């Protein structure tokens, strides 16, 4: 392998950037949708990601990896719906209240996961096995085929979501609640279910990312959501809260920046550099790429 930037290195770097871009997109999108309908910055997003990963890991022995990866997000989605129905109902809260709620949810979910994991397994970190071993040769390097499968799944889900969002009645309902809540209610949109549904979907998307990411990061732990929520919030904000296209664009932007900088420069610089670029976007366009002008 040459560290001189050659075709192989470019190719795997771009592939990896694509895969992570799609994963971040799932996360940023979920956050954006929740913000759009509930006007709540969901600090518990990382907890849903973590729950998706943990549940998937726990269910793999009984359901096989792919079964677990399907079921875990569904369960987390339902938990999301339940939480929103219980805590929000039809209401929309002011920023602080919503923040406190999601902060509280994050703390509780994370601690419950810690307690449960410690009690049942005695360890807070667990290795995740990849369901398939498919090293794709790229020059004299290998790229794990599993990651491409993840990209494909994420891509399909994102496309599917976009379809639902823009073409179905339910998606329409969500957009109505986002754009003009009062009017939506008057017109007969079931605000309660729209909200709860949105929260559930956002949670499910985060959980799916978590379930898929296990074999890539190779471990799951109750605190794995923390760093993720920090960056997802950043990405969702930079994309414009409530804007799906924006969220996608920024997710890819971040992922490409990080992967390219790691390859070309220092891994230390890569994290800082990618962040600064996102910060720059916000500086230039404070409402985010796709955000409405304030």
């Amino acid at each position, binding site marked *: *392998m*040459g*560290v001189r930037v050659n075709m192989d*290195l470019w190719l*795997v*770097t771009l592939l*990896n950037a694509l895969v*992570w871009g799609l994963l971040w997109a799932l996360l940023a999108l979920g956050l954006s949708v929740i913000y759009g309908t509930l006007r709540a910055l969901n600090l518990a997003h990382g907890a849903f990601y973590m729950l998706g990963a943990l549940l998937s890991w726990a269910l793999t022995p009984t359901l096989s990896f792919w079964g677990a990866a399907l079921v875990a997000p569904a369960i987390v989605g339902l938990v999301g719906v339940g939480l929103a129905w219980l805590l929000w109902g039809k209401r929309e809260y002011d920023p602080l209240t919503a923040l406190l709620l999601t902060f509280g949810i994050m703390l509780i979910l994370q601690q419950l996961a810690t307690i449960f994991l410690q009690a049942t397994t*005695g360890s807070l*970190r667990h*290795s995740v096995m990849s369901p398939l071993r498919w*090293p794709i040769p790229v020059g*004299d*390097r*290998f790229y*794990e085929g599993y990651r491409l499968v993840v990209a494909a799944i994420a891509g399909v889900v994102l496309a599917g979501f976009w379809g639902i969002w823009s073409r179905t009645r339910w998606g329409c309902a969500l957009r109505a609640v986002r754009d003009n809540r009062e009017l939506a209610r008057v017109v007969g949109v079931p605000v309660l279910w729209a909200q709860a549904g949105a929260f559930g979907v956002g949670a499910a998307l985060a959980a799916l990312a978590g379930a898929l*990411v296990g074999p*890539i*990061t*190779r*471990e799951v732990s109750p605190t*794995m959501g923390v*760093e993720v929520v920090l960056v997802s919030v950043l990405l969702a904000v930079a994309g414009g809260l409530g804007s799906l296209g924006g969220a996608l664009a920024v997710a890819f932007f971040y992922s490409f920046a*990080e*992967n390219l900088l*790691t*390859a070309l420069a*220092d*891994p*230390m610089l*890569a*994290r800082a550099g990618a962040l600064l670029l996102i910060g720059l976007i916000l500086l230039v366009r404070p409402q985010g790429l796709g955000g409405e002008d304030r």
Partner: protein
Amino acid sequence: MLTRREFLRTSTAATVTFWLFGTTSHGQPQPIRIGHQLDRTGAVALFGKWHNRALDAAIKLVNEQRGINGRPVELANSDDAQTKPDAGKDAFEKLVTQKRADFVIGSVFSGTNIATAPLAKALKTVYFPQGIATEITEKFGNRYVFKSYHTVRAAIEAAHAWVFANLGKRFTIVHSVIDLGRSQAEEWAEKIRAAGGSVQLIPVPFPAPSDLFPIIQKIDLSQTDVLYHAFTAVETARFLQAALDQNLQSRVKVLGLIEGIDILSTAEPWLEGTYFISGYPRRADQVPEELRAFDREYRRRVGISAEGFSLENPREVVPIADLFGSWQAVFLIKQAAELVNWRGKADTPALIQALEGLTMPAGVNFPQGAQFLRAQDHLVFHDHYVERVEGGQLKVLVRLPREQSLYKTSADYTKEEF
């Protein structure tokens, strides 16, 4: 007829006398307290737990040996040091001021050791840090700080000749940027360049990024004979798994310090064929023959099986290569305290002088073998081993005597005041 004044005077005198001579109303000697700066949570939590067990077992043994100067010894645990230097510092402070610890065995986290060292001197309490960053005995140590087992520099000094001769001189070092990782990277780089080899350094943020693939991509195999890794145990596993994806274990020689995998089972595909420098063999049958009896006793008391697992939970790996530092620290205290008839903190300077230059014989107190404590930098020198994972188990390839790990130190704590 006793006047009130006389009564008060006599009873006060009696109380003061009892207090001065440190005996309780039952006439039992006051126990000596050894404190443990314990991390219950965070990256080094598993190490903390086992060091605590080793300390507990060591103290039980000391008490069977009539304690220290006839006084019983007890263990005092600190508040959770949380693998955070500031929390560890506070924990140390409470241990000394509130729980009245006479000596403290430190955390395994180098950052915490470095932050706590000045406090040890300020509070005049001998401190035995268990982290291995070289700086603990160089830039950041002081007269009250003693390292009861090796630092990174000692391990590298011991092993580098063998490594260069048998594995190669062209290194790529992938390391975490915390003290532990940096220490290893810098020490190796110096030695490699001095030997005419080449080295590429790849620093990795701490905590390590979720995806180590891009970092692995930076390794230039055409320039690498030895891939050296320096991470905390948890991150080492992830790194080596990512390396296996690229089959690196069969393409280059993978080397690290045993502290990187001390809590991991070696029956993993990503450890097969990898090399480690260690201070203590994990498996009993790899221990040098003359030490086996002591090793058996040591393992029995701490609760470690012959294969290096916990006796209570056969799937839990015990970080045995780390533990002997804490175990030995207790006996260092005992040996020095008995040499100077230590009775209280006022005698600590004499104890420190006794420790400086101490030689320790092999035995159940020092199961690792005969060792000595260098006066200038307060560092214990012991034998090292190079081990390799073959068939899922660690095998010792070579034993490196303690003299080989001696390096020139710039520190001289003997010139410091107390």
